[in-house]
């Protein structure tokens, strides 16, 4: 009579086997309890569910297309390749799914102020967007290093009315932004909602964000049946915190014939330290409010990580993802920076789609796996975001001299 995986991975208690939990300072406990209660009440309310659906259809642009990659399929010469294109959503990535959901919850709870952490700025941008729409004050914490290197996103967030605060502590990246956001929440518990941007953090965030993201897989199921007459044989998604992967996989967790693959950031190789593949050398720990796999040293200090894609450059992974790893339901692998960059170019040239560097990790695995499969099989990958945001990273990696020249000209004109 065992529970289904779907039941195990979204529930009020927030423990997923040994993972998850709510390891927060006492002062945050009532805040998390209130949020959990508000969320689980809201999703029983038809009006809430209808409002979310309406906004997805008319504001964010759902359903997103499921697209048969005919040229890529021909080039790879194996299984039939399909792409779920979340990059076509408003703000350019799946992040808007949980931002919209959480903004509605915040409104329902009477919160007037929303805070968020952001690494590359994508989650901050999606948060600033929904705050603008719902008239919520928006504060985005960003590591000072990210703040400097992601100036375009900082500019857009400010244009949307958000206040972006650079965090000068620690390594001045995503982790420090998370810590600063938690401190803000501790200081302003009554009027503030912390809009956490992935399936990490204390209960109820992993369950709540999974719920708001599972629409990706639900649409994919309908679209696959519609286009191919059946379920996919393989599904592939990149895994940073895990929000796009869980959203994509969730609806298929209890369909054992659908093989699921998560792709972590292999960075410059998993033998060294410059990567973010938690399942290649990470250990179980309790950090930032939840128990899961983390890249850390022998004594439990979190490690610094590296990935070409800022969205995957994080030492932790969501607790439900760790559960699926141990369970064996999802197979995990990794893609290295150089393969990711090649995948990015191949998808652009064959299908005319710029995938985000995060999503290009999934594309790299598609390129590796598909030729080994029979033509009768189907592979569908989640293009979780579009790649225009990576302009500066890609041009730098490709050492595009003309682009550098352009930047120098622009500087001169300023």
């Amino acid at each position, binding site marked *: 009579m065992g529970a289904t995986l779907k039941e195990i991975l979204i529930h009020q208690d927030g423990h997923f086997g040994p993972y998850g939990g*709510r390891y927060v*300072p006492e002062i945050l406990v*009532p805040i998390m309890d209130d949020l959990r209660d508000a969320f689980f009440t809201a999703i029983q309310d038809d009006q809430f569910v209808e409002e979310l659906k309406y906004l997805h259809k008319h504001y964010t642009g759902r359903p997103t297309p499921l697209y048969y990659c005919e040229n890529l399929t021909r080039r790879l010469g194996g299984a039939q390749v399909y792409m779920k294109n979340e990059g076509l959503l408003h703000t350019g990535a799946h992040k808007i799914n949980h931002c919209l959901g959480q903004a509605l919850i915040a409104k329902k709870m009477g919160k007037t102020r929303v805070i968020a952490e952001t690494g590359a700025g994508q989650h901050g941008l999606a948060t600033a967007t929904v705050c603008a729409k719902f008239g919520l004050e928006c504060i985005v914490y960003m590591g000072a290093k990210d703040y400097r290197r992601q100036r375009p996103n900082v500019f857009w967030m400010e244009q949307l009315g958000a206040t972006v605060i650079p965090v000068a502590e620690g390594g001045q990246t995503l982790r420090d932004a998370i*810590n600063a956001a938690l*401190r803000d929440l501790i*200081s302003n*518990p009554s009027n503030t909602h912390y809009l956490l941007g992935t399936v990490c953090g204390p209960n109820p965030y992993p369950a709540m964000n999974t719920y708001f993201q599972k629409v990706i897989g639900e649409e994919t199921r309908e679209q696959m049946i519609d286009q191919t007459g059946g379920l996919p044989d393989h599904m592939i998604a990149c895994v940073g915190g895990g929000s796009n992967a869980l959203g994509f996989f969730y609806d298929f967790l209890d369909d054992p014939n659908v093989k699921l693959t998560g792709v972590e950031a292999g960075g410059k190789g998993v033998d060294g330290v410059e990567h973010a593949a938690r399942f290649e050398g990470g250990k179980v*720990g309790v*950090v930032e409010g939840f128990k899961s796999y983390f890249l850390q040293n*022998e004594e439990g200090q979190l490690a610094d990580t590296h990935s070409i894609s800022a969205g995957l450059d994080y030492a932790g992974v969501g607790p439900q993802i760790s559960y699926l790893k141990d369970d064996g339901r999802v197979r995990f692998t990794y893609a290295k920076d150089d393969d990711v960059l090649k995948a990015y170019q191949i998808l652009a040239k064959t299908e005319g789609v710029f995938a985000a560097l995060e999503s290009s990790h999934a594309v790299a695995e598609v390129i590796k796996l598909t030729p080994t499969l029979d033509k009768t099989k189907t592979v569908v990958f989640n293009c979780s975001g579009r790649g225009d945001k990576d302009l500066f990273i890609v041009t730098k990696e490709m050492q595009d001299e003309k682009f550098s020249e352009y930047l120098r000209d622009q500087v001169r004109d300023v």
Partner: protein
Amino acid sequence: MIKLTKQLEKIKMSGQPGFMMHLVAGYPDMESSRVIAKNILEEGADILEVQIPFSDPVADGPVIAGANEKALANGATVASSLAMIKGLVAETEKPIIIMSYFNIIYRYGVSAFCETVSSMGVQGLIVPDYPVDEDAADQLLDACKAYDLAFIQVLASTSRAERIQTLLHNATGFVYCTARTGITGKKTVVNEQTLTYLERIRKLTELPIAVGFGLSSKDQVSALHSHAEIMIVGSALIKTYMNKPLPEGLDAIKRFIKSLT
């Protein structure tokens, strides 16, 4: 935890506020932190709270978080922190308590950690990111019991009533009440709300009450003493010696502690 129990009794009998003073092991470096700790004990701390530095100290404000970061950057490890604490315990009669985020303890092994620090003579643990709800899996409370360590519960004024009961039920040593909504290191205004909250806790427990978060001046101590036996001083103390050469820092510590009493 006999040293702690005796000290708490002594504080109660004296009618004077007791002071628990905090520092981060390894800040600014391990040897200096040892000297600073000894100094704090000599200048008037009744209980010493030594924090093992952690890479992600979410419950700490910028001052203590910065000290954690600096300590790690200067090479502090869990092993070297514990060695330093072991030396301190051997040289003082006053109780020493370890503050650590849970991952440090978890990676060491919950039971092994408690055994190690208890055998060193450490009197108790403060683990700010370990709510009792998780104890079914991690069993830190049992390990504390088994190795005679006080498990200091941190209470918040916003905690739901039935939860406060649960926390107090699991508390040993004393209870740590936060005096304001917020993180360590910002000046607390002692208001009616704070005092009412402390009165509420007083009615629910026999244990001594320690009050912390944002304490930095004598007027705060005077305002709180009728409602709590122990004053916790953290960030304000670190502020007195941060970015100063050691001799100057020690002088500043001396003046600061004098100014509180």
